[in-house]
């Protein structure tokens, strides 16, 4: 008897049918997908052409209330035109990012005349965070200042992307006044966002005194304190010097580091001794920040401390201390040279290295 088992021919036929069916489905789906993609590409290409020509016609014109705008059918506000109208918003924003002057102003005028704010509002009111963030971006890029009260609560949104766009928007609308969102901010501000906000403020005229700064420096949100310290250092807010000193004793290393930097930037005569006092209790990173800061403010008074660190620290620390010592002047260089002669390994190498850095 042959005990070998064979596949049931009927089952094999069913399997072939199912497999064949699946193959056909896959081919069909691929075809539909490629067709849809091609159609989208064609629409985009057509839109490119229509919109570029249309916008090119209007962007340099002297546009005012009397201007009779001829709107292409694809940009008219109808439900079927949602894609092309979103495309128009994107293109206007892109143009505004690249051009200023009349062309830049005209992008806002065209955005309003085409009723494109509706697209941005739909995005802004969406429940999906990426559309909400996009909506906020569109509204501030197109200078829709009337939206600032509605956008403000989102400066403390739990979603990082929505929050950062809203913060950027409020600063774009209100300038330094917009920093009021720090009074209510409970969520973190990433370092990248802090850099972006500082850059956004840079071209603007700062107020002499930041009224709310004492509150920010005592905020329960460590990142608000950190950012306030950056502002205090950058804009020389001497009225909060006491608060900055207090921040040297914060439990957060990042706040202490920023306080060190702020104190040095504010250039108080006691700042060098204050940060030296902190040195032994600091983290390695903050110790290095102290040495980098002393490079800018150290005088012969700080020489004994720097020489001690130079002798006892590890390789990186020795180098940072040597730079600060050399920057004090001839007295510092003499001490480095003397130490190099006294103990050539490693001090002579460091001395020569510092000399070559100065020569560069």
């Amino acid at each position: 008897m042959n005990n070998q088992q064979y596949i049931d021919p009927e089952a094999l036929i069913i399997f072939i049918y199912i497999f064949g069916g699946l193959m056909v489905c896959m081919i069909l789906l691929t075809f539909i997908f490629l067709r849809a993609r091609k159609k989208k590409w064609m629409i985009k290409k057509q839109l490119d052409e229509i919109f570029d020509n249309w916008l090119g016609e209007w962007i340099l014109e002297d546009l005012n209330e009397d201007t009779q705008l001829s709107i292409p059918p694809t940009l008219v506000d109808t439900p079927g035109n949602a894609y092309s109208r979103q495309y128009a918003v994107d293109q206007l924003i892109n143009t505004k990012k690249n051009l200023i002057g009349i062309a830049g102003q005209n992008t806002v005028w065209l955005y309003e005349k085409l009723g494109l704010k509706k697209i941005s509002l739909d995005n802004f009111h969406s429940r999906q965070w990426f559309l909400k963030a996009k909506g906020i971006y569109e509204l501030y890029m197109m200078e829709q200042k009337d939206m600032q009260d509605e956008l403000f609560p989102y400066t403390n949104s739990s979603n990082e992307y929505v929050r950062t766009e809203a913060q950027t928007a409020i600063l774009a609308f209100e300038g330094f006044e917009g920093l009021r969102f720090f009074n209510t901010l409970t969520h973190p501000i990433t370092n990248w966002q802090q850099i972006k906000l500082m850059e956004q403020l840079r071209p603007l005229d700062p107020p002499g005194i930041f009224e709310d700064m004492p509150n920010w420096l005592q905020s329960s949100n460590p990142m608000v304190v950190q950012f306030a310290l950056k502002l205090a250092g950058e804009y020389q807010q001497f009225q909060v010097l006491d608060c900055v000193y207090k921040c040297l004793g914060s439990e957060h290393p990042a706040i202490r580091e920023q306080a060190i930097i702020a104190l040095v930037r504010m250039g108080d005569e006691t700042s060098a001794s204050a940060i030296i006092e902190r040195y032994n209790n600091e983290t390695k990173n903050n110790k290095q920040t102290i040495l980098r800061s002393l490079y800018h403010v150290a005088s012969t008074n700080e020489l004994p401390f720097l020489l001690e660190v130079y002798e006892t620290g590890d390789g990186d620390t020795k180098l940072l201390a040597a730079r600060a010592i050399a920057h004090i002047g001839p007295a510092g260089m003499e001490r480095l040279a003397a130490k190099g002669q006294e103990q050539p390994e490693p001090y002579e190498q460091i001395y020569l290295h510092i000399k070559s850095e100065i020569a560069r």
Partner: protein
Amino acid sequence: MKILIAEDDNLVRKTIEIKLSKDGHEIISLAEGKAAIENINTMLPDMVITDIMLPGASGLEIVSTVKNITSKDIKVIVLSTMGQENIVEEAFKLGADEYITKPFSLTELSIRVKKLMSRV
């Protein structure tokens, strides 16, 4: 004057084209670096306005191509964005005559074009 514009952003390219056409210049505008280089070699424009970042060949390659042409003094304006200072410096080393940072005003570009053209 014949001006070649190499800029991959359609709208920016189009608006520059319109503005400079209104100023009375003959414009050739291209979105791709390699095509721009080919056209520079065959058409020998009086001026090239090029973006730093382009598909195909970079703005620096375009500057280098232009300045290697000895039969004609072709002026070059480089369009850059904030943070591209090092590349702009490189472009000047290669011989670029002017640069303008985005966002820029078309009026400002038009003035710079006139100023450079007066030196030709």
